[in-house]
């Protein structure tokens, strides 16, 4: 038995039947990190010793029956923009290279309450701005399916670590696709919950009205389990929804008979790679075979949504990142004589090029004279996008699209053309604009063996619907049994 290949629900069973101990599990993961990290480069701050020590303590507590919950001792990896008290939270930026948060994010409190073990902080694009994890200040994470390709982003470290079995599961964050797209590139499951379902308190903000934390897992059942842990109202986050708690694992019925699936045809047009398209078409046939009704329809908002996304996300980011001024924490330049220089030089030296590019765009669209043409208009388009989705969900339970127009691309091939990079977010951003839940699950590989992701979208707070739809498909297709990462390619 290879421990690290097991899903969390499988680990739970083995723990219950005493086939495995917490310490064995943690040790297996630590060993796997040691084995693959030099190739994959997923971690910014690994916590190997800490994890082993914690495993021992938790094992004792379990034996003494001080802890009885079923997730105690299960390891996890955390994207490095989620605040962890006492452990560095860098956002993959020089700006926060040495920053230790004075408090835990609400999701970390929840993880800690379950006595789960943090294996480390995972790489990402700087401040979550990017789609390839190439914009990390520290390192470029590589895709375990082909080390010459990117893992996607911005939660590339999380997705790669899960795919490489360096963590059993991980937390990511998704502002415009940052959970779903890397999950798709790495052949794992990524869920972006409804805006407001998971507390954002302690998630270093990129775009406040779009950000959500969510699970990246090996399978759908694990996604449901981890969502159970992190979902829930938080009085520290004003945008957190005050909803009754749901057990998402109960939604996994392995049955989609009568499910109404809408296929927005605009997401299958120009710009979508033909192999991706083919794979998705096959998935659609599978759903039909499983008893779902599938219908094509027009959701003509993709381009508007993408432009709106970049306007809103960058505007909010330009303001959210104002706090990094070199005074209370973070990078301070050595090169200043007055306050103005302290501000400008700290920010100019501490932020990477992509972050500055987005701050400049965001500042521009909010500045006097342009606000109405861009920001105000974008907020109206946002209303339009919501309305169009509302209309779609009057007819359909689930919308099905590709997660990304392409599979993982080679490292260094896109990072010089920002607009091209932005256009690749076309399939995912409208979900954030409308605040909807979306899940990406693997639905096949291309001719080079690279995973392809399928995105399922539901109406607000209908996570159960897409979890069941994804689960039913997964049970039928059994992607994990047929494919696995090869770690091929090599150090570039």
């Amino acid at each position, binding site marked *: 038995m290879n421990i690290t290949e097991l899903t969390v629900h499988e680990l739970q069973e083995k723990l219950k039947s005493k086939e495995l101990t917490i310490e064995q599990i943690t040790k297996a993961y630590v060993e796997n990190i040691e084995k693959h990290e030099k190739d994959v480069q997923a971690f910014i701050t690994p916590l190997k010793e800490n994890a082993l020590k914690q495993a021992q303590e938790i094992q004792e507590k379990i034996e003494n029956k001080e802890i009885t919950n079923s997730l105690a001792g299960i390891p996890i990896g955390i994207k490095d923009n989620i605040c962890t008290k006492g452990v560095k939270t860098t956002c993959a930026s020089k700006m926060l290279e040495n920053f230790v*948060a004075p408090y835990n994010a609400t999701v970390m409190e929840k993880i800690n309450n379950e006595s789960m073990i943090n294996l480390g902080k995972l790489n990402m694009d700087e401040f979550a701005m990017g789609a390839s994890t190439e914009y990390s200040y520290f390192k470029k994470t590589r895709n375990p399916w082909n080390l010459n390709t990117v893992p996607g982003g911005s939660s590339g470290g999380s997705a790669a670590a899960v795919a490489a079995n360096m963590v059993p599961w991980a937390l990511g964050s998704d502002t415009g696709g940052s959970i779903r797209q890397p999950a798709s590139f790495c052949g794992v499951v990524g869920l972006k919950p409804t805006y407001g379902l998971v507390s954002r308190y302690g998630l270093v903000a990129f775009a406040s009205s779009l950000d959500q934390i969510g699970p990246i897992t090996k399978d759908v059942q694990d996604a449901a389990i981890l969502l159970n842990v992190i979902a829930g109202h938080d009085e520290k986050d004003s945008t957190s929804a005050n909803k009754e708690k749901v057990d998402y694992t109960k939604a996994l019925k392995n049955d989609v008979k009568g499910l109404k699936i809408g296929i927005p045809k605009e997401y299958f047009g120009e710009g979508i790679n033909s192999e991706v398209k083919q794979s998705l078409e096959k998935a659609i046939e599978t759903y039909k075979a499983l008893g779902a009704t599938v219908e094509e329809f027009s959701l003509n908002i993709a381009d508007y949504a993408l432009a709106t996304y970049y306007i809103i996300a960058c505007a909010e980011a330009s*303001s959210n990142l104002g706090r990094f001024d070199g005074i209370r924490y973070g990078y301070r330049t050595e090169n200043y004589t007055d306050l103005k220089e302290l501000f400008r030089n700290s920010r100019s030296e501490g932020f990477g090029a992509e972050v500055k590019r987005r701050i400049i765009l965001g500042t521009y669209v909010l500045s006097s004279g342009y606000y109405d043409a861009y920001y105000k208009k974008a907020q109206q388009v946002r209303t339009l996008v919501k309305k169009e989705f509302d209309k779609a969900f009057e007819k359909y339970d689930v919308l099905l699209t590709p997660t990304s127009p392409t599979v993982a691309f080679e490292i260094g091939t896109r990072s010089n053309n920002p607009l091209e990079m932005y256009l690749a977010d076309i399939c995912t951003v409208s979900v954030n604009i409308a605040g909807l839940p979306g899940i990406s699950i693997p639905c096949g590989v291309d001719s080079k063996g690279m995973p392809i992701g399928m995105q399922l979208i539901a109406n607000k707070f209908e996570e159960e619907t897409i979890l069941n739809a994804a689960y039913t498909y997964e049970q039928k297709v059994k992607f994990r049994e047929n494919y696995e990462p090869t770690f091929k390619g090599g150090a570039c």
Partner: protein
Amino acid sequence: MAKEDYEIVIGLEVHAELSTKTKIFCSCPTEFGAAPNTHTCPVCMAMPGALPVLNEKVVEYAVKAGLATNCSITKESKNDRKNYFYPDLPKSYQISQFDKPLCTNGQIDIEEDGTTKTIGITRIHIEEDAGKLNHNEFGSGSLVDLNRAGVPLIEIVSEPDMRSSKDAENYLRKIKSILEYIEVSDCKMQEGSLRADVNVSVRKIGCKEFGTRTEMKNMNSFRSIVRAIDYEAQRQIEVIENGGKIEQETLRWDDVSGKTFSMRDKEDAQDYRYFPEPDLVAIRLSDEYIESIRKNLPELPESRKKRYLEEYKLTEKEAKMLTASKYMSNLFENALKICGNAKAVANWLLSDVSRILNEKEIEPDQIPFTAEQLAKMIMLIEKGTISSAIGKKVLEELFENPKDPEKIIEEKGWIQISDEGAIKEIVMKILENNPQSIIDFKAGKDRALGFLVGQAMKETKGKANPKMLNDMFLEELNK
């Protein structure tokens, strides 16, 4: 042209710190005077990832202020970010309100020399205060203390309806008094919890267009505001008279030199890039909510004044002066409850107490003694334990070292001599030493009696009962 040909136009933006227990967006205490950065948390320190949650009392207090100043309450409101960099602003944006302030379109009346004038209130919005920069006297830099960062403020913006520094003072006093009455701010100007940005422009009388205005920020004393307006108006008139143009700019008033100075260089023209705060949700106020606040609004100065006229038979002037400050007015009512003599309490407050406040240049909220202490002092006079001359001394003492007046007179040995034997002894002694006064009195010079009483008071350091002295001198002189 002369100064008389110009009209001054003034508008005020008043910032009042709300007297909530906690800050506007986090649960840190607002209390003044704590050790640096001890009233802080991840939210008000703008730690990465921290989020604001609006204090319900802030909305309630702002609505109260709006209703007390006859504003319309905005039913669908929101918060916005105002973006600018400054070391006392930890997020590099201030959460404020831009286009949907909680209150709009109000007005209040001010009075001067018996005429009433209405000053329009454009809007009242809620926002957070900034931190404080301390200047390092010995070292090389400045030090940032964020205890005040996130303390709730309302900003009350007036229409440019004031025409003199006196108008501005009356308006600000009225605003202060209203906020004190409705108990939403303690308005302590010396602690900066009430401060005003003053906009001044001038125009030739008869001219309909406003002149270009200048703004003086963060003024926190009535005296400076009056001086600054007078100075700035005069300066503007001189510039115009000399063929110059007024530039729209922010000025700093310097109390020492009595002049205004330009504050920001022009290249840093501000662009605050306001946009809706995405970390907060909309504020929706129901009619029921607004009405319940209206119903529970405390008595405002106008109606209190009316009551004083009717119940206590005070004069219009007395009632107005007493109710101008809630502290003064409360002192009056509370002392009255104890001693029962409205006229006496009013007299003491409006004459000696007000005189001392003026001399000390302090506001009624800084009066150190309690209503009970004042009432006791008045009762001691009524009982004849002390004379009113001693009463004045007791009052001075109450300002310096407030304690029970009985203790004061005991410690100072100020108890009035009302013992007949003791009085007689003094009278006889004074008569013996002033034979000429006896002759003068007998010759019909009544003033001699006053002189003798004065001598006796001097001899007893004011402690002798003046009526008894008077009677006994008369008795002896007429023998």
